[in-house]
């Protein structure tokens, strides 16, 4: 096998699209499995759905891929997106009953009483949370720091790496005292009052703790909106996001 599968696959797309479909069967199955995990399809339907997608690809979408793909990404990512769209189209055609990931499921996870499907659903949710956090880009350091406070996750020196060497010794000392051990009982407001001192010094601002709290809540509400879907498929609340973040930070 070549050490550059992407080039190989582009050639297949150009000359032997049917072979490309054959090679990408595992990708189609993976995408369909993702939809099954979320309850859009039943397990028993898996191969039918895969077959449906193959038909749609061969009859319609493969020629469109050839026409529209500009080669700026891996072909398999682009192909996955096309399969994802096709799955969405299929789900729209049928009445769907997706799994509702809510507080109960997440609380059970902490009790380790989940079946494999539920575990996969949570793994899925954690990956989606990871994507949201990675997408913060330049705001990532501050956002992650604040979301840890929101989740009441203990901090450690790695969380302060970006702030060392910036002459913030007093503020960092307060952070260490307040958040390096269990602060579950510390009211959110008190936590933000400590954190805002750090960010105000850093950003040369005089914002209030409420302002920081509002900023964090807006991030969380945005996460809820995106994760729940439109129309909502999930039932995330601030509480479930808190649990998800606790899990994510613990596992990462």
């Amino acid at each position, binding site marked *: 096998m*070549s*050490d*550059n*599968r992407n080039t190989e696959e582009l050639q297949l797309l150009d000359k032997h699209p049917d072979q490309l479909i054959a090679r990408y069967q*595992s*990708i189609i199955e*993976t995408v369909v499995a993702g939809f099954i995990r979320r309850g859009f399809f039943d397990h028993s339907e898996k191969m039918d759905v895969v077959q449906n997608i193959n038909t749609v690809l061969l009859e319609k979408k493969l020629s469109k891929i050839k026409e*529209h*793909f500009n080669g*700026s*990404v*891996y072909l*398999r*990512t*682009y192909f*996955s*997106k*096309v399969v*994802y*769209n096709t799955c969405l189209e299929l789900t729209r055609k049928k009445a769907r009953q997706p799994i509702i990931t809510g507080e109960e499921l997440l609380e059970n996870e902490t009790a380790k009483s989940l079946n494999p499907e539920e575990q996969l659903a949570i793994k*899925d*949710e954690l*990956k*989606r949370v*990871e*994507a949201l956090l*990675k*997408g913060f*880009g330049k*705001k*990532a*350091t*501050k*956002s992650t720091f604040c979301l840890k406070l929101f989740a009441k996750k203990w901090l450690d020196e790695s969380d302060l790496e*970006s*702030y060392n060497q*910036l002459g*913030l010794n007093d503020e960092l000392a307060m952070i260490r005292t307040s958040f390096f051990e269990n602060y579950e009982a510390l*009211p*959110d*407001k008190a936590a933000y009052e400590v954190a805002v001192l750090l*960010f105000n010094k*850093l*950003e040369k*601002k*005089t*914002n209030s703790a*409420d*302002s*920081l*709290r*509002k*900023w964090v*809540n807006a991030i969380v509400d*945005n996460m809820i*909106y*995106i*994760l729940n*879907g*439109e129309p909502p498929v999930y039932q995330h609340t601030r509480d479930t996001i808190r649990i998800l973040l606790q899990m994510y930070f613990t596992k990462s």
Partner: protein
Amino acid sequence: MKAIKDQKHLNDEQIALYVDALCADKTDDLSPEILSHIEDCKSCHRQAIDLYSILDDVDYTNVGAHPTFDKKAAKVFSMPRLLMRLAAAVALLVVAFYFFNKGTDLDGPGDIVKEETPAENTDIAKEPKNKEEKILQKRDINISEKEEIIVKDAPVKVAAPKQETPQPKSIIPADNQNVRELYAANFQPSEEWEEMRNEAVRSTSFEVLQPKSATVFKLNTKITFQWEGANESRYIIVMNNKGAEVHKAKVITNTFDFDLKLNPGLYYWKLDSDDDLLHVGSFTVE
């Protein structure tokens, strides 16, 4: 091809590019247009994070260099050696120049948020414009003395003293004076609190019955705060336009009568608990 800003949504390849960037931790290499669209468009953002979670199970071994992200790096490394050295020398010069000018005043990491600094009392912070004002500021005068002087020198706009601490004592200005002009600094809205004002910070069926937003009260009027949808005990906090706390009280009912005498000015109030900020409103006293 349409520019991203003219598109309603990102196309499949642009979403795939965002996802590849997430997988490779290279979101910084994405065009600002894609990043800004993802930030604003929840539908595209949702599709991207869905795809990201699904791709976790897709095999990406031996796929080779990334067509977009690795191309940039490859370009840099394929530069002739002399050119590379030249570029390095220029970069060094730029860095040296930067530090020479900037000294050791380093900023923090680049994750500064769009939070606004509360409005400053600029009238007071500014250097005095003329001798007369200078004298006024230097002198340790009380407010009524100051009012008299202002009346005499009407064209010279002098702000009321900065309210660092609560000032429960009401000062009633002399007749025919324009209260807003006298206390101009007290009426200057705080950007930070304006932004928070009237937002149902927590999504509940909470509703403020009174005072309605931006109600104007006459001096020494009793103000009744009333709301519904929040039955647990809370704190009601009244702040001046600089965000300084003027009054704080614990409330266990849905109503609160406030009859502390306030100076003319813009005030913000919030309903708060240790764990939640329920509402921010404002009112004016003049």
